[in-house]
């Protein structure tokens, strides 16, 4: 597939980045003057971006060569390194653009209501716009450097938004943690770009993907692994997953937009975009698979043990992105499935988060599910939209998750060999656990006896909040079918990934579907057995099995991070501080002290007595006489 220069509206696709960016600039620079209408402007820019994106996509669909590039300006020109800033509008980026702007617009509308009483609402919308602009740049850039600019931008926006209520120490700490762990991943991405430049002299997609065959195998593997490191950081995959649940300190719309639908999917985008690289290095691709499998299990296990509704959803996100990594790690068969799941997940996870926000709004910003219960009657719209999202997530037949997750697990089994069985089995097990924890969540929140605290009066959210939830619920229901069967994404993404392969099925698709259905029922039933049937205690039981205790501690991820990195890091900084104080300052101060001390000691020679001075003179005369005698006679 050739990339043609853009024409028509696509040539103006830079507006997609520019509009939200301008919105952010106006709101941040305008200050309090923009407080009254800032949120409307911000929502408007994202809605406009959605419109432009839709139009561009329509135009793209009509092109013969469905891959258009837009030249913008020269970013870096240093003789050796020439980076042209430009955009690449092809089906993959179009998909992401629609997802980002669509879900983003809905969440902007939701936030108008959610943040209605917050004095920092203007700042919130400014940061949201900044995020949308950076994310669009990330998916639209035509080179790894452009991607990196957007990558950093979303990291910054994530930091700003997690710590939106920056006066809360927990929020500030969580933002720092997120940023630092992202940084670790960013180093990997940066190193990969350096290697690309050093070996190939170019960082554009066209350049790199075209010449990847010229590189040595080790180099390609290194690039692949480093890109994977970057993706793990941004997407919260093992071993860099610990920041995502902590990022729930931010306002719920942030969790919905950034940490469910878009930013955390940037890693998947990166790996999908770098398909030619990964296709050349089976080693790296296997590592992607392993990471994906491990992460989906981690997310599923830990999600079963938490009582905080947002944290359960966060671990669910971690787990689902593990599925996406698993998908893209399977190679050409899995790219389309992974992207499809990504889009579907964007809908239903965002919907779930917005629903959680609605529940929190009703319960006075509480998140402890042990104090929920019986909310189905009080929050009907929320209950219905949340329920549809829940069913989509667990893979209820004919809803989104059913189509997309099945596609992934099919592709996993189709890989063949031991790895195929292992991966498929892990994915199936993960699906079961997903059903378990999501059902548990539903039962604890909406069903059962009301375990509310005093003074809590649940009420339905205003329309400005429930409308986006409804739209997302519709998406949750329909997206899967549309993307996999009606308008197959594989065909749409053909310009990017090539012809979709029809692999020989190791396990018949129907078998997979039935197995998954059964597993889903088993998980839901287990949840009802353990949680729904009995009274939910308002405080978490203390005597639990080691597995539950481990899950409550997030499988000790934080402990490991602390002992492996934080403690040595702090020890190192303390040692350096000690070295600086004693060593460097010691040398400087010691020199000064030595000078002062020696000067005072030497100064004591000035006794003031003339006779001492005369003694010195006589001594000097003796020395001179001695020298003279020695010279003349010697």
């Amino acid at each position: 597939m050739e990339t043609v220069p853009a024409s028509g509206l696509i040539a103006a696709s830079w507006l997609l980045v520019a509009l939200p960016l301008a919105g952010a600039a106006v709101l941040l620079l305008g200050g309090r003057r923009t407080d009254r209408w800032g949120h409307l402007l911000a929502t408007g820019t994202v809605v406009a971006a959605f419109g432009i994106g839709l139009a561009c996509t329509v135009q793209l669909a009509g092109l013969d060569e469905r891959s258009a590039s837009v030249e913008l300006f020269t970013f870096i020109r240093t003789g050796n390194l020439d980076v042209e800033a430009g955009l690449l509008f092809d089906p993959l980026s179009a998909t992401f653009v629609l997802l980002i702007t669509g879900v983003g617009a809905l969440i902007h509308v939701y936030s108008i209501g959610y943040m209605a009483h917050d004095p920092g609402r203007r700042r919130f919308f400014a940061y949201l716009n900044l995020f949308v602009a950076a994310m669009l740049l990330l998916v639209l850039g035509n080179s790894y450097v452009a991607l990196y600019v957007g990558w950093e931008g979303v990291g910054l926006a994530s930091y700003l938004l997690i710590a939106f209520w920056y006066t809360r120490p927990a929020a500030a700490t969580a933002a720092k943690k997120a940023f630092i762990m992202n940084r670790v991943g960013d180093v990997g991405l940066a190193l990969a770009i350096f290697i690309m430049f050093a070996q190939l002299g170019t960082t554009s997609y066209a350049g790199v993907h075209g010449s990847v065959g010229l590189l040595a195998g080790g180099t390609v593997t290194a690039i692949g692994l480093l890109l994977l490191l970057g993706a793990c950081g941004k997407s919260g995959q093992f071993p860099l997953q610990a920041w995502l649940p902590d990022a729930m300190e931010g306002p719920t719309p942030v969790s919905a937009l950034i940490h469910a639908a878009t930013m955390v999917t940037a890693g998947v985008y990166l790996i999908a975009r770098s398909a030619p690289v990964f296709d050349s290095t089976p080693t790296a691709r296997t590592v992607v698979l392993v990471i994906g499998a491990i992460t989906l299990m981690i997310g599923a296990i830990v999600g079963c043990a938490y009582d905080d509704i947002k944290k359960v959803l966060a671990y669910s996100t971690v787990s689902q992105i593990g599925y996406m990594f698993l998908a893209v790690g399977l190679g050409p068969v899995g790219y389309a499935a992974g992207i499809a799941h990504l889009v579907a997940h964007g809908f239903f996870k965002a919907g779930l988060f917005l629903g959680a926000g609605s529940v929190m709004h009703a319960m006075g910003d509480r998140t402890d599910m042990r104090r929920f219960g019986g909310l189905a009657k009080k929050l009907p719209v929320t209950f219905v939209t949340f329920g549809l999202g829940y069913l989509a997530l667990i893979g209820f037949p004919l809803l989104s998750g059913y189509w997309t997750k099945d596609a992934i697990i099919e592709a996993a089994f189709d890989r063949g060999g031991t790895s195929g069985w292992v991966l498929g089995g892990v994915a199936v097990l993960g699906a079961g656990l997903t059903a378990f924890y999501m059902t548990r969540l539903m039962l604890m929140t909406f069903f059962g006896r009301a375990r509310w605290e005093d003074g809590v009066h649940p009420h339905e959210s205003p329309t400005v909040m429930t409308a986006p939830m409804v739209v997302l619920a519709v998406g949750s229901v329909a997206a899967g079918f549309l993307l996999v069967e009606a308008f197959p994404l594989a065909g749409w993404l053909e310009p990017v990934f090539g012809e979709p392969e029809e692999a020989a099925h190791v396990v018949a698709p129907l078998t997979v579907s039935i197995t998954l259905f059964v597993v889903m029922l088993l998980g839901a039933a287990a949840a009802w057995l353990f949680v729904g049937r009995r009274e939910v205690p308002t405080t978490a039981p203390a005597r639990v099995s080691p597995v539950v205790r481990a899950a409550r501690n997030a499988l000790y991820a934080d402990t490991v991070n602390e002992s492996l990195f934080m403690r040595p890091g702090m020890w190192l900084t303390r040692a350096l501080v000690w070295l600086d104080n004693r060593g460097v300052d010691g040398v400087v101060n010691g020199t000064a002290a030595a000078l002062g001390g020696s000067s005072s000691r030497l100064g004591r020679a000035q006794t003031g007595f003339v006779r001492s001075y005369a003694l010195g003179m006589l001594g000097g005369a003796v020395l001179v006489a001695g020298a003279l005698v020695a010279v003349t006679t010697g």
Partner: protein
Amino acid sequence: MNVLAAAATEGVEIGTGETVVFWVLAPIALAGALGMVLSRNAVHSALWLVNTMLALGVFYVVQEAPFLGAVQIIVYTGAIMILFLFVLMLVGRDTSDSVVETLRGQRIAAIVLGIGFAGLVGAGIAEATRDLPVTGLEAVQGGAGGAADGNVPAIAELLFTRYLLAFEVTSALLITAAVGAMVLAHTEREPGSRPSQKELSRARFLSGEHPQTLPGPGVYARANSIAAPGRLPDGSPSPASFSTGVQPQVVDELPHTGSVGAERDGLAHSGGTDAALGTLGGDTTGPVPGSGEGAPR
């Protein structure tokens, strides 16, 4: 390499007289120097130094420099050392050094360095001048062959030709030194803090006691002792004439003429000594003025 020896011509032998003088006076000079440094009393130090300087003066004379020897004795010893003694009397007589040395190690270091210095310089000089011949000043001041006739003309010849500028500058230096000493020794007094002669005289007249100065001891004395009172014009002894600390005593006095002077064979000319003094109505020895006897005139 003995530079001096290489440049010299045939020398004069040093005679035995000079040798004897040297070996006699050198120890004396050394003893004087050591005595000066080691004596406790400052005046003794000065006197030891006078001793050394006199010895050096003789050395100058022996070494064909009579003018300098004379100047040494007259100026150096006679003027400068006496000036030292004056100031010692004023200032330093009472302040004698204590035996204990206040600076630690000063004495030891001084002695060690002194011995070292003397050894080095002495050995160096001895080594350098061992073969130095003595040319003698006969050629310069012997008077023969156009040379100056004597030491003083020789010196004068050089002093007023080659060293004339130094001479003039030195004279300026002397003037400066004299003025400087006056400036340094001057004490600034408040005007009116010390009564002038005029005021003293007026005070004496106003008090009505004795307008003239008091007679010194022994004025009009008839005995050769400062214990004898001076006599006022009317012959009465003046109690104010005694110097402080002297007890008035009965002393032998010359006999008065015209009373019992005939049998004394003192001064056998008319009037004798007492004629000049005049008689006062035939009193013999007046009462010995004791304390508070009669109002002093």
